[in-house]
């Protein structure tokens, strides 16, 4: 617990330094979160080259708009995730516009193929959830879909989809709680 409090304090100091244009703080935050953010971007864009550009753009935006981050309203990672999500969706919208002007058949199913090549299968707690819960969270969190788009994609009514999301979040909490309990037990045993 003391370690947890100390980590939160360190993070808030780090973020404060980041907001004061400290490049070493940016470097540290990049090391902490670039992988997680890149994982989101690459799954959403399904395009490795674009994902690399979007990742860089996300951190540049965060750096330039760091004063807009308000720690009282949520975690730094959530703020960074929203920037990444919006930047990626903007990229996809522009790409869609370009495709509409060209031959659609050339690009058909390109995303799914790229997706397979990128080895973006889900891991960790999310992978332990039931398939429909897993898919519901994947669609809204990793694929950047709205609830309306996602329920159509899953072929279930909006209400059902919303309850999938709620259940998935509850299950996720249970998995993490169990993992924490196990970790505490192991630590107790070791101690």
């Amino acid at each position, binding site marked *: 617990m003391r370690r947890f409090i100390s980590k939160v304090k360190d993070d808030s100091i780090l973020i404060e330094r980041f907001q004061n244009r400290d490049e070493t703080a940016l*470097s540290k935050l990049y090391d902490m979160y670039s*992988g997680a953010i*890149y*994982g989101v971007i690459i799954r959403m864009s399904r395009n490795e080259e674009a994902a690399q550009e979007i990742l860089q753009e996300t951190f540049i935006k965060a750096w330039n708009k760091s004063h807009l981050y308000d720690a009282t309203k949520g975690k730094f*990672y959530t703020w960074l995730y929203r920037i990444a999500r919006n930047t990626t969706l903007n990229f996809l919208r522009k790409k869609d516009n370009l495709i509409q002007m060209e031959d659609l058949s050339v690009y058909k199913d390109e995303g799914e193929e790229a997706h397979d090549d990128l080895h973006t299968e*889900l891991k*960790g*707690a999310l992978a332990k959830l039931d398939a429909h819960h897993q898919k519901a969270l994947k669609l809204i969190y990793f694929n950047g879909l709205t*609830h309306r788009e996602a329920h159509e994609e899953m072929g279930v009514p909006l209400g059902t989809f919303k309850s999938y999301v709620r259940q998935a979040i509850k299950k996720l*909490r249970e998995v993490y709680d169990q993992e924490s309990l196990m970790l505490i037990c192991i630590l107790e045993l070791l101690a």
Partner: protein
Amino acid sequence: MKDRNTIIESGMLEMYLLGLLPDEKVAMLEKMLADDAELAQKYAEIEQDFENVSLENAIQPPDFIKEDLFESIRQEYTDVKQLPKEAKPQTFLWIAASLAALFMISSLWMFTQWNSTKEDLQVTQKELNDIKSQIQNLQTDLESSQLLASIVKDPNTLQYAMKGNAKIPGGFATAYINHEAKSAIVNVQKLPELPADKTYQMWADVEGEMINMGVIDKNKDVVVMNYIDEATSLNITIEPKGGSDHATVEQLVTNVYL
């Protein structure tokens, strides 16, 4: 309590996390999160779980992206730092040069305007003087005409035609004498012009002596002369410019007996 559960069940918290909540609901939810510690705790858990999911599904990006990122940030710095240094003096120089040019052009324009106004003013003044002199002449003419009219109208005025002799062929003057008003004027319109060094002069004959009635100003058509009592005749001679004290009888051009 009911509100809190409704919010949790409605899925607003994850919508907020994903950035999908409409602005009006964002403000409402943020206020509730600030006021309700339990709701805030619930949200913090969801945030943490999503962060954990992301970290578990992290994909390591290539190293060059971090290098590119820092290069791009430093590039922005140098752009920001260099721009004012290089651009500012040049900008000021341009502004100064433009202002100087503008000042010169406006000065030149004003000088031209001033000169033209000065010329206009001179022309106007000359015209004004001409008009003044014309008015003066008209005034004089009017006075002469009025004088002539008043004398002619007067039943006591006697009119004498003075026909010119061989010295001024075709020339003649008309004299108007009023013994009641004791006035004498003469219309000299028809007297021929004289050389610049000569002038007409009028005389009254009183008992064989020529009395000066005055020099005739040829610039006027009607000239007021001195009235001489008991004159028996009126005489006009040509005299040197400025007139003479005594009449040069040889130069008599016309005379009339009263």
